[in-house]
């Protein structure tokens, strides 16, 4: 090929271009090693070290943007083929870019080893995210986020006004603002005690040329309502109610006295009101809309360049009262002050308002929960004796269930978050070899949650009264990083890049929680409109907390390479944090890794088919300091007695507490062939995390029942494979396919402390030899068909009663004929055996069609929703599955008998554990590029469909329930279609 630029680095540097037959020749001293770099626009540049030159052939490969060639590492930008550790980057496929509803969505299928699961369908909610195995019991497993070089503390990990609802930590980053993402899976030691969960390094767009460009994106979407579950109809429900009330010891007479409407007697005034057939799910599940607008302007001159982005997102969800509104702005600037001094600024600000809903654990305020469990006999509105329907919502029904329609319309759960990031980086170019930089970053986050629970239509709420509550969480973090970098080419063969630096961070977080009970009417929704002194507020509670933590790290790393054949990296971080006592304050986190690139060997350099063959290996040690700010210290906190303040000892510190420490071996192979049409990357790792924080039972005389100790060990190992292929690479027609596969195995090795924990509805345990956080309960083996069969076993339940026909058959693990907690066993794990994704993209002329498919296999889900709809122990409505319930001696079924108040047949057992494997067509996108005029340089229209098809045996609304694997009935993940337009000016 003609005109390819060739540069030669040797004892002296020179270069030129190839001639018409693609040849470039030059003379050099015999035996003089040199390094050749070839580059041509539209093609990937290549570098090669040559020992003894005669003739070298380069096969140029068109750069079609389908592979990641550079990654942002802690040390800066690094060529992907020179990495020694395991790290993955993302490539923008149309599907990922367009279909992503959030940043988590965008990252989801990108890199093997990174597991991201939505916790439900509430837009704006944090997804659960984990790199490699679950390496902690009580600390966070969320990866470290590094945005534009600033390490970000997860400031929203304390929850909100709704249990287990977490504002996403990635709220400030819009997918369209992002230039590159690196997922760092090994070698994160440089991040010290923040590194054991891996790191996600995000770099936003920077202006690279002085030309002013404007990009506008706008899209509009429709989200489809989830499919309703099959619940008992009005008639079936009434039959069930009669049976259940009889089981509660009521005679028909008692029933008709207590609930006269049950007789359907038309002369009774409430018969019309309480004899309907309302499909509550149809009333509450709804279609919704989404809109997104994004504007990005890039420009500047030689001295100063900027990127400005502005966005607005509005998303609905499948329950009408849930939605999300976000405004965000970002400004990045690069300024060259003098020849030696550069400045970089990044600021971002986002304001998001979410309307969120309770999951099914909040029995009286969960829209979905009450829609499922409320009897269809009732009606949303009041109906009078003449059958006239009133506009007012009906109150809680005679059976005590709340009115989901009143919840949708009268209950508020709003969360507003304000998030500011600002960072400034000064770079001093001292010489060609030495650079110094200082970064200062500030993050301010404030989240305000407001809840209003109305009086009518909501039953059994805590205080049985109107409630107005506020939850405020405020975080301020300041981050400093000073660094000196030294880059030295000793000669052509030996290259060294070293840096050392020092980070300091101060953080404070404050929470306030206020509750007012007994507001006088539904117009007073806020405590600011009335105070206890001036209104009839019955009760007012205020509490809060305050956490301050500071840390500093000294770190150093050296990267050495020889002839672009052998690579060696060494790093160390010394970490000190206020979370630990003075005796354990400083901990060291070293790492070493190396790589050999076989394709740099003279014998393979000129291979016509092999582009890259590299073996990587390394060891690293990282920590997790998420032990709580003051767990290690003894302190007193305030309390009240009769309204006067008291002081009480509330923590007995443990001076010995230290970081949870992960030691990890990683080995990897990178293989590229056939002009890089086939790219395979394979990693295998084995990690052991020791000193995991566990609760430990104290001697009773200590007074505190539990204290935290570093007492558990978890091992995890896995294989991560990513394959990408360019099947067709023509000018008009391109076809790329790819996929990734992650297999992992996590095992608890040791727990010196409490090894089982109660979760809502069940238990999880950390048992030696089993997966961490495995579900722990009874093993259910069907239902006794006859009482004779049951009593022949002589088995007694936890209440001391003999099992009878229609009861669940539980495994009596210790064979003592008594089913109690000692018969509990591991009955499932939320960790998948393997998971991953496939993606494919066709481009034909200006059309492109792409698809992403995700899969997860072998993960189990605790279906808490089904536990509520099949327990048959209360007057709640149940699913149609209970029509198969055991009713007569000899009946063979897997559905036990209905017993009012039962807690034996409905106990936490394998009955509620389901296979959560799924294959999901995450996204399909069709896009068309066009050029309209000189003014509009480029345009694109796209149609994108999310989550349209899911293949699973899981019985709940959606198998994507978050990494905890418990389906608490959060609103299901949204599916829908988006139509959008992108214009570049």
């Amino acid at each position: 090929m003609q005109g390819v630029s060739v540069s030669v680095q040797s004892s002296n540097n020179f270069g030129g271009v190839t001639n018409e037959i693609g040849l470039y020749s030059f003379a050099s001293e015999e035996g003089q090693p040199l390094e050749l770099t070839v580059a041509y626009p539209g093609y990937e540049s290549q570098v090669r070290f040559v020992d003894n030159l005669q003739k070298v052939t380069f096969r140029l490969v068109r750069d079609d943007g389908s592979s990641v060639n550079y990654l942002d590492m802690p040390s800066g930008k690094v060529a992907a083929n020179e990495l020694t550790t395991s790290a993955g980057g993302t490539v923008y496929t149309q599907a990922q870019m367009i279909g992503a509803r959030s940043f988590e969505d965008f990252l989801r299928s990108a890199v093997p080893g990174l597991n991201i699961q939505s916790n439900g369908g509430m837009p704006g909610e944090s997804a659960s995210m984990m790199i490699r195995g679950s390496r902690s019991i009580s600390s966070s497993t969320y990866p470290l986020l590094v945005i534009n070089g600033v390490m970000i503390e997860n400031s929203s990990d304390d929850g909100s006004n709704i249990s287990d609802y977490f504002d996403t930590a990635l709220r400030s980053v819009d997918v369209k603002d992002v230039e590159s993402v690196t997922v760092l899976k090994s070698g994160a030691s440089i991040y010290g005690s923040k590194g054991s969960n891996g790191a996600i390094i995000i770099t936003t767009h920077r202006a690279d040329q002085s030309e002013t460009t404007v990009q506008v994106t706008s899209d509009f979407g429709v989200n489809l309502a989830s499919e309703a579950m099959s619940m008992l109809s009005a008639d079936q429900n009434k039959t069930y109610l009669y049976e259940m009330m009889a089981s509660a010891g009521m005679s028909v007479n008692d029933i008709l006295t207590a609930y006269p409407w049950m007789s359907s007697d038309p002369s009774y005034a409430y018969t019309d009101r309480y004899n309907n057939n309302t499909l509550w799910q149809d009333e509450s599940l709804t279609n919704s809309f989404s809109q997104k607008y994004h504007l990005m302007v890039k420009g500047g001159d030689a001295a100063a360049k900027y990127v400005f982005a502005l966005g607005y997102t509005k998303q609905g969800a499948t329950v009408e009262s849930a939605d999300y509104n976000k405004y965000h702005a970002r400004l990045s600037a690069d300024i060259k002050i003098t020849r030696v001094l550069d400045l970089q600024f990044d600021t971002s600000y986002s304001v998001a308002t979410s309307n969120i809903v309770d999951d099914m654990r909040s029995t009286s305020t969960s829209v979905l929960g009450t829609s499922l469990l409320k009897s269809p006999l009732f009606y949303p509105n009041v109906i009078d004796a003449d059958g006239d329907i009133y506009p007012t919502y009906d109150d809680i029904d005679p059976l005590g269930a709340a009115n989901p329609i009143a919840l949708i319309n009268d209950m508020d759960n709003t969360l507003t978050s304000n998030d500011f990031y600002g960072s400034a980086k000064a770079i001093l170019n001292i010489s060609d070899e030495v650079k110094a930089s200082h970064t200062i970053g500030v993050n301010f986050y404030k989240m305000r949650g407001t809840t209003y629970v109305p009086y009518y239509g909501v039953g059994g709420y805590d205080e049985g009264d109107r409630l107005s509550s506020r939850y405020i969480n405020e975080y301020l973090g300041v981050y400093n990083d000073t660094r000196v970098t030294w880059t030295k080419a000793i000669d052509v063969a030996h290259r060294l890049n070293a840096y050392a630096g020092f980070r300091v961070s101060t953080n404070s977080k404050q929470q306030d929680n206020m509750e007012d009970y007994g507001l006088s009417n539904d117009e007073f929704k806020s405590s600011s409109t009335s105070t206890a002194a001036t209104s009839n507020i019955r009760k007012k509670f205020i509490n809060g907390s305050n956490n301050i933590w500071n840390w500093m790290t000294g770190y150093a790393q050296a990267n050495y390479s020889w002839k672009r054949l052998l690579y060696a990296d060494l790093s160390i971080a010394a970490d000190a944090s206020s979370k630990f006592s003075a005796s354990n304050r400083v901990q060291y986190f070293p790492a070493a890794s190396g790589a050999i690139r076989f394709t740099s060997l003279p014998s393979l350099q000129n291979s016509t088919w092999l582009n890259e063959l590299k073996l990587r290996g390394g060891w690293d040690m990282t920590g997790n300091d998420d032990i709580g700010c003051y767990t290690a210290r003894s302190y007193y906190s305030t309390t009240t007695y009769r309204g006067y303040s008291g002081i009480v000892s509330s923590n007995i510190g443990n001076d010995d507490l230290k970081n949870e420490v992960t030691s990890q071996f990683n080995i990897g192979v990178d293989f590229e062939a056939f002009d890089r049409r086939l790219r395979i990357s394979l990693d295998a790792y084995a990690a052991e995390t020791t000193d995991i924080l566990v609760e430990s039972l104290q001697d009773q005389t200590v007074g505190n029942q539990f204290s935290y100790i570093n007492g558990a060990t978890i091992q995890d190992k896995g294989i991560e494979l990513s394959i990408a292929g360019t099947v067709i690479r023509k000018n008009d027609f391109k076809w790329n396919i790819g996929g990734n596969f992650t297999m992992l195995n996590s095992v608890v090795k040791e727990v010196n402390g409490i090894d089982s924990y109660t979760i809502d509805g069940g238990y999880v345990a950390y048992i030696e030899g089993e997966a961490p956080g495995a579900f722990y309960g009874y093993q259910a083996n069907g239902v006794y068909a006859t009482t004779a069969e049951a009593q022949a076993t002589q088995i007694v339940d936890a209440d001391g009663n003999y099992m009878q026909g229609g009861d669940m058959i539980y495994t009596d693990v210790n064979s003592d004929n008594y089913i109690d907690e000692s018969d509990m066993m591991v009955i499932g794990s939320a960790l998948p055996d393997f998971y991953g994704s496939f993606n494919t993209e066709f481009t034909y002329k200006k059309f492109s069609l792409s698809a992403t498919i995700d899969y997860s296999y072998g993960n189990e889900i605790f279906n808490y929703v089904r536990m509520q709809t099949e327990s048959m122990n209360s007057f709640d409505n149940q699913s149609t599955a209970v029509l198969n319930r055991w009713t007569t001696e000899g009946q063979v079924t897997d559905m036990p008998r209905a017993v009012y108040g039962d807690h034996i047949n409905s106990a936490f057992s394998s009955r509620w554990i389901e296979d959560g494997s799924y294959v999901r067509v995450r996204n399909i996108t069709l896009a068309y590029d066009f050029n309209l005029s000189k003014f509009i340089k480029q345009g694109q229209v796209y149609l994108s469909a999310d989550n349209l098809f899911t293949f699973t045996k899981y019985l709940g609304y959606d198998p994507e329930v978050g990494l905890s694997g418990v389906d608490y009935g959060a609103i299901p993940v949204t599916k829908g279609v988006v139509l959008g337009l992108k214009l570049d000016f």
Partner: protein
Amino acid sequence: MKRIFKYIVIAAFATSWSCSDFFEPDNSSVIFEGDENSLTTDVVASLLGIYSSMQDLADPIILLGELRADMMDVTADAPQELKDISNLVYRSSNEYLSQNPFYEVVNNCDDILDKMIDVMDSDPTFTETLYLNYQAEATCAKCWTLWQIAQLFGQVEIDGQVYTLADTATKLIEILESHRNNFMINSLSADWFRSRCNKWSTYALLGELKLANEDFMGAALEFKSVIDIDGDNYHKLSSTYETSSWYKIFLDVSTAQYEVLFAVDYNASYKQYNSLQDFAEYYVQCTDGVVAEMYEDADTYRTEVTFSDSKILKYSTAITQASSLTQYEGATPLLVYRAADIHLLYAECLNHLGLYEDALMYVNSGDVMNYTATLGVRGRVGLGNIEGDTVIDPDDAMKVVDMMILAERGRELAFEGKRWADLVRFDKYYPEENILENALRSKNESIVVPTETYVNF
């Protein structure tokens, strides 16, 4: 190059050494060890902290004191832990049998007792008189809590040393005795002292401890100093709680002058609940028949507050609603010592000292001769003499009167957490009568009566 590294290292160490605050940042919502107790107000706050930690003791004290005994039973809905307690099955996993909340109180007491003396140096308003007063208060709270541990669990660790139940009373008397005269508050009308340990609760505790050692004279003197004339400052069975007003005893500690010596208080306005109302609502009930048989028909003022059919009312909304005092919803006080209890204990001592007629006077209609205001336990609720037409044979009087006292304690103090200890104590007086075993069998015929009367696992 080297110089730059050197600066970084120096900067690093300079930062870490020059400001130790960096690694021990202040916090406005907690106080770290070493920063506490420098003012009188801090001492008072620490004392109030003791009582707020005492609030956790109501559940175990009531459950272990009543549910194990003959008057309280579980409902079908009760969790297994409660059923176990009712059946005298003790498993260490039973959260209601944890000693932690007790030792938490003890440790809070020890903490302030250790540090209080230093406050005299830092705050001149913290006088020696104040010091002795607060020291006595904290000591009383500590000894009372230790006594509960010993009674419930059979042994207790006091200042690092383990004492068996038999040795505990003597040890606690030794600790507490010297503080008895150090209390500053001598007036019953003083502001809400009934919610804190005070001189009268100290006397009552010393009396209980001496009674446990069967030192009836010593105990009688302690109880007497609670109910004896001291200006107007004595506890009496007054007309304030006579007949239809009897229920008010269980409502508002701050106005329960003359009746309540010491109670652990709760307040729903500050989200301080005990679970007793919930227990009474769902999980525990009166024992079938027994309660009804224990009361005479004329005993209406007590029964209407104590139970209705099998439902226990003493902690229920039936009482709290009557008062319209919403702060007591789910937050009825734990009455530790009240006048009727002390009068009956005093009667018990007098009986064992051979003064059975005097003893009966307190059970019946009061010490009319001396204390005109004291109505007597039965007289206050409009009942006649306990002996009725029975003519007591002086030779057998002690046992007969003791049985009467035990029965009256059951009726007067039903579900207040005293029953188990009463049964155990009277069982010891008359081992041949199998008082404890008979009582337990009346609730559950198949029950295995343990040889040890405390929780031991």
